[in-house]
């Protein structure tokens, strides 16, 4: 395998005594291409070099990507297993840590049954590891309780796409085509901050005259330059989308042939959106009717358009409906399956796409198979070498696992690559649940807020110390290369799962000597499923700049554009939704008069475990703040920088005010990347979407006062 991949004629700066190793950023779903600088003598990671010839990102990186390498040789890395003794972590040997895990796991299962154990996974890991998490839980531990942090990230998009299109692939088109799009309808996505390297494609399209419509309660850097900024109230996306659909129909912008040939339930949708006149839509969303009408005309008249959305619409208790409705805007215009048009969600986590397809989810098995389908269970059990009846039944979603802890059903949790102590809603409940566990194991390379609750912390490697594949936000499978040897005694997540499996007497099901062996098994496990990776090999990824799934065999070119001829539903037709208006889980009241919405800043990634330990990023954004409009601020006599006390029905916090007109007057915004007293998730509402079980991070009712 080549370590440094570069196209002819592309110049990179090489320093003496250094080598460049080609890989991708460890953070968001853009998976920007980069080369890591490694000192040849010491083997240490020393810097980064742009990968100018990676076709998705062209060498561009955001500040997280530029500084990503700094977490590898970081002084705060955990290099030995830690065991909590008398409330203090003490360094120990792997032997001792594994003994402790084995004893506790066996004891708990003997006393309370197999399902006393649980696994909480994450998708900032390679496909190989994500695939193994499901197998580890079900085969090594034999528990039904496994779920992952994608429930707080991608599950509504997945649910909405499954319902509507039959296959959940984040983008129906490859990113470089965006340059040729005429109109972007972007809802609940702060692209400039959360997926910055996408901006180059959007701006290039704009250079050619493309229009932008942005729906967001805040005037984000993308909303600021939009042709129409639909400044809707948080949690009213389904109304806005219904209103847009209403106008597309009323104004004759529907591609009738496409809809008749390729969609079900057009009549049902028509009937449901009848109610959503611009006036009614405006009443629900708080957006001026003229803007709604203008947006519909621009979108409706554009020959090639892409509907894009992200957590803003998905992290609601109707996230799945929102996704289905926005997706239908693309369907009514006949856009999906064509050049430079379609629908896309911005995958949050690095491998949010790949990691959700292969069985980390409570009800899913590799290749997007379902655990309640006996055929699927039979196939996967065959690959794993177990009997179908040994396959545990479906578990429960991430947040609901904490209910099971509170009910005494789950007695132990192994958290892998995640930090729910910060990222789960209603933090106090999560913290209390961790304390109730009899035994808790965390695999991480920094001592995260979650790890602090653990009885045993197992030191893992960073992304740079292992190889594998990830799937970026387009659905393109790409290669992560190993850049250096594991630091200290840290081990890769797959080795850790393997070691615990051995202790549980299941070692023979985890015989891997290296990552390619896991990948080979995983290809077969995904074969024939919806997310079919069988035809994708490491070699092909390198030669072809990544391969798009589905790719059922090695001669198959992969699928950059989805749904050209038919959709992934049983009858090949897309299902148009008929959705009525439903309020968010919480609306402002006299006691809690304003809306609190949460989100991200460009300098931090998820719960901040890594980015809060990176100097540049902390200098630029050291702490959370509350963003508010000067009109709201003046009602409380807040000045910029004043301490503000915020309280919801679940918790409270104190942060500094940041005053700007770039937000709705009735909303306040707090970024969520901090833990403990700085965690806004103490305040957020765990109102769950009925299908995706996604909590409503984006909307809750809040009261303010001077602190």
């Amino acid at each position, binding site marked *: 395998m080549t370590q440094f991949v570069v196209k002819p004629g592309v*110049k*990179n*700066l090489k*320093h003496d005594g250094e080598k460049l190793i080609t890989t991708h950023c460890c953070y968001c779903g853009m998976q920007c291409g980069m080369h890591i600088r490694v000192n040849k003598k010491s083997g240490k990671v020393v*810097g*980064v070099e*742009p990968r*100018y010839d990676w076709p998705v990102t062209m*060498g*561009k*990186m*955001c*500040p997280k*990507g*530029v*500084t990503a390498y700094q977490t590898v040789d970081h002084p705060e890395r955990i290099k030995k297993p830690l065991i909590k003794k008398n409330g203090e972590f003490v360094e120990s040997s792997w032997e001792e840590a594994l003994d402790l895990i084995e004893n506790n796991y066996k004891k708990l299962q003997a006393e309370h049954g197999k399902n006393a154990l649980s696994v909480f996974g994450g998708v900032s890991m390679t496909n190989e590891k994500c695939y193994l998490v499901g197998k580890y839980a079900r085969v090594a531990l034999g528990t039904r309780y496994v779920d992952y942090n994608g429930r707080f990230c991608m599950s509504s998009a997945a649910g909405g796409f499954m319902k509507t299109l039959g296959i959940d692939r984040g983008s129906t088109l490859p990113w470089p085509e965006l340059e040729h799009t005429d109109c972007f309808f972007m809802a609940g996505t702060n692209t*400039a*901050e959360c997926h*910055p*390297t*996408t*901006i*180059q494609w959007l*701006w*290039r399209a704009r*250079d050619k*005259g493309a229009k932008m419509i942005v729906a967001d309660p805040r*005037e*984000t*850097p*993308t*909303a*600021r*330059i*939009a*042709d*129409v*900024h639909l400044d809707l109230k948080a949690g009213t996306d389904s109304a806005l989308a219904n209103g847009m659909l209403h106008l597309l129909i009323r104004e004759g912008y529907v591609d009738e042939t496409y809809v008749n040939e390729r969609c079900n339930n057009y009549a049902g949708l028509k009937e449901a959106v009848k109610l959503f006149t611009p006036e009614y839509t405006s009443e629900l969303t708080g957006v001026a009717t003229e803007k709604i009408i203008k947006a519909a005309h621009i979108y409706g008249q554009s020959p090639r358009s892409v509907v894009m959305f992200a957590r803003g619409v998905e992290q609601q208790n109707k996230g799945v409906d929102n996704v289905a409705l926005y997706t239908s805007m693309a369907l009514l215009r006949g856009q999906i399956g064509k050049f430079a048009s379609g629908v896309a969600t911005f995958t949050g986590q690095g491998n949010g796409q790949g990691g959700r397809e292969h069985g980390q989810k409570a009800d899913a098995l590799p290749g997007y198979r379902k655990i309640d389908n006996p055929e699927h269970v039979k196939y996967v059990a065959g690959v794993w070498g177990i009997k179908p009846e040994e396959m545990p039944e479906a578990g429960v979603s991430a947040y609901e696992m904490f209910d099971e802890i509170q009910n005494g059903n789950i007695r132990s949790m192994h958290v892998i690559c995640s930090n729910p102590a910060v990222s789960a809603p209603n933090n106090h409940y999560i913290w209390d649940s961790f304390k109730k566990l009899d035994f808790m194991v965390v695999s991480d390379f920094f001592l995260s807020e979650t790890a602090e609750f653990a009885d045993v912390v197992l030191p893992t490697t960073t992304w740079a110390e292992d190889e594998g594949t990830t799937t970026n936000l387009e659905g393109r499978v790409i290669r992560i290369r190993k850049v250096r040897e594991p630091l200290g005694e840290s081990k890769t997540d797959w080795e850790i799962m393997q070691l615990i499996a051995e202790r549980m007497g299941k070692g023979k099901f985890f015989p891997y000597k290296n990552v390619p062996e896991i990948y080979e098994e995983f290809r077969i496990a995904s074969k024939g499923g919806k997310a079919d990776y069988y035809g994708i090999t490491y070699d092909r990824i390198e030669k072809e700049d990544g391969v798009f799934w589905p790719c059922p065999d090695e001669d198959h070119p992969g699928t950059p554009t989805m749904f050209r001829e038919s959709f992934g539903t049983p009858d090949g037709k897309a299902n148009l939704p008929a959705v009525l208006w439903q309020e968010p889980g919480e609306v402002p009241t006299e006691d809690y008069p304003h809306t609190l919405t949460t989100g991200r800043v*460009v*300098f931090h990634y998820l719960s901040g475990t890594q980015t809060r330990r990176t100097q*540049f*990023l902390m200098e*630029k954004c050291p702490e959370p703040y509350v963003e508010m409009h*000067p009109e709201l601020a003046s009602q409380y006599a807040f000045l*910029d920088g004043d301490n503000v006390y915020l309280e919801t029905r679940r918790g409270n916090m104190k942060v500094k005010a*940041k*005053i*700007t*007109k*770039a937000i709705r007057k009735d909303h306040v915004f707090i970024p969520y990347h901090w833990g403990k007293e700085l965690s806004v998730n103490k305040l957020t509402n765990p109102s769950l979407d009925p299908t995706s079980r996604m909590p409503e991070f984006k909307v809750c009712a809040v009261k303010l006062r001077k602190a």
Partner: protein
Amino acid sequence: MRKVMYLEFERCIGCRACQAACRECGGHDAKERNYVEYVDFFENRQTYPMLCMQCKDPACARVCPANAIQITEEGVVLSAMEEKCIGCRNCTFGCPFGIPKFDFEENKMYKCDMCYDRTQHEIAPMCASVCPSDAIRFIDHDEMMDLRRRRTQMNLIEGKKPSENNKWDYVPEFFGVYSD
């Protein structure tokens, strides 16, 4: 050097990748030399990058009593030479763009050198390499001139520019920097 730096302020999304990347440049001692600022955060989120204009007749070098600021044959204005800089800070006041920074611990000035270790090999500076919005570009002089003409023409075409939320009027449309 035939390539030039080209700034288009309105494209900037304020991500500060250019600043993070500036620290990564070989000779930069992990200190950034460029700036990203809000136009007025109370009003909106428009930011703009600022870096050395690599002036033909640089004020910083002119006002330096120790002759510490060298200009390369390609016209790149370098940081003050360690052994010559007397720490008077004249350059930081002399530069009309406020570019040179001062290191009080080391008692010397430092500034953007267009990543000379890269650009002398015609490899883009770190800031221009990573800038996700192409607000900072490292392009051929001809391409730059072409872009300048095209911008003006395109702005005349109806519908090209947004009529609402057109808040980039705060800053010049574009700003070309070139060294030949």
